[in-house]
């Protein structure tokens, strides 16, 4: 893996996503423990950790698919609204890519990508369609535009899901284990799109088990365990010289093969 050139370090922009002492419980389980995390504009942050460590919850909390009990989350200085139209507007600015793709099953690929811009942004259908076709072209599934999600492979569906998020021109994109549900031969086609996106300057928070992607595209690795952020570092430092015992243990388990 030493032949992979280290990504160019970008100057961090202004703080875009700021989590301040965020706490959340699932019943007795303290899934997010006093989380402090600042993601700057243009930064790519990879969140890794053992399953059940709270990394997916963290990702989902940022656009309030999960509620939290105390602390604050701001996007570009703006506090997350509780509910209603304001929250919908804010979610439109935060792209989300799910593990299980979640494309709208009863709509075509093209309709999946144009729905958000038309309904949430008021874009004219013709303009939305033109932009959608550009994005589908970019992720390599433009020729499938008239099909339904179930007719596409998992890798294609996930690339459409990325295009659907991009169509909203989000300020930041959240990826919740985007390749975990994919067959091995389809993982790279999705990671390639994500890597391109990272290099294009998109702000990204990526929950993943793909260490190769973390090394190649991340500016920073955040390691979570038992609901807390245990360690943060550059990918190079984190993978070669982990500080905490839990990170060493985790890396020891996944990198031996």
């Amino acid at each position: 893996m030493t032949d992979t050139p280290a990504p160019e370090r970008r100057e961090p922009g202004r703080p875009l996503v700021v989590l301040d002492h965020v706490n959340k419980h699932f019943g007795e389980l303290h899934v997010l423990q006093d989380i402090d995390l600042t993601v700057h504009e243009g930064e790519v942050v990879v969140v890794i950790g053992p399953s059940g460590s709270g990394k997916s919850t963290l990702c989902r909390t940022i656009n309030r698919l999960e509620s939290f009990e105390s602390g604050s989350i701001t996007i570009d200085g703006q506090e997350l609204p509780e509910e209603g139209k304001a929250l919908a507007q804010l979610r439109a600015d935060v792209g989300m890519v799910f593990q299980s793709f979640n494309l709208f099953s009863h709509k075509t690929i093209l309709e999946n990508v144009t729905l958000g811009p038309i309904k949430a942004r008021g874009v004219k259908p013709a303009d939305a369609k033109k932009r959608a076709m550009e994005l589908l072209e970019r992720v390599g599934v433009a020729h499938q535009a008239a099909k339904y999600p179930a007719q596409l492979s998992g890798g294609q569906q996930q690339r459409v899901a990325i295009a659907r998020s991009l169509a909203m021109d989000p300020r930041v994109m959240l990826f919740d284990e985007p390749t975990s549900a994919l067959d091995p031969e389809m993982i790279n086609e999705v990671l390639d799109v994500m890597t391109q996106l990272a290099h294009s300057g998109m702000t990204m928070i990526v929950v993943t088990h793909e260490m190769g992607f973390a090394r190649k595209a991340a500016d920073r690795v955040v390691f979570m365990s038992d609901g807390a952020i245990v360690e943060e570092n550059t990918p190079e430092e984190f993978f070669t010289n982990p500080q905490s015992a839990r990170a060493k243990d985790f890396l020891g388990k996944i990198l031996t093969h």
Partner: protein
Amino acid sequence: MQTILQDFGLLAGFWMTIKLTFWSAIFSLVIGTFVAVMRLSPVGMLRQVGTAYVTLLRNTPLTLIILFCSIGIYGQLGIVLAGRDAPGGFIDTNNFRLAILGLSVYHAAFVCEAIRSGVNTIPIGQAEAARSIGLTFGQSLREIILPQAFRGAITPLGNTLIALTKNTTIAAAIGVAETALVMKNVAEFDPGLLWTAFGLIAAGFVLLTVPMGLLTSHFAHKLAVRR
């Protein structure tokens, strides 16, 4: 047979059955969808009202509801649903509409539950994805949840339609001239024709409802959301 069809008005009775079914199906679909939306809404108060509606209407005998429409709404409260100079005669038109009212509110409870069962066929991720691209609750319902719910609810909705068709016979209780009233008249005035009347009415209903069942199966399969 000619006597039953013409003199006792069995053909007209079946035409009445069809009209009752048609209008009640439309109104119960509208009301049922509305109640289902209430039961799915994030507002606790609306959910409770929706639940109360279904619990009350679904567990009350239809005969009681239809009689209430006639005796309570018209007889006691004096609310009329037809003009005094209605073309079909005031009493007949009013009873016809009261019957549709009763049939609609009753079957709306079943429609609501059918739609909710359709909603349960939708993976939670569909709603999350809708929210994540910035759709409001109303937009998510209209664009994502309800279209998939209806398609997943075709079979239970078809069952409700078949039940509705047969339940229209209860409208006879308030004097609507549909098949059950014809049956009653035959039994009263010409008992010799009783078996023929039974047979014809049973056959008529089978003729009406079997295609409903077939169409339901056809569309449930054809419109199923592929996941």
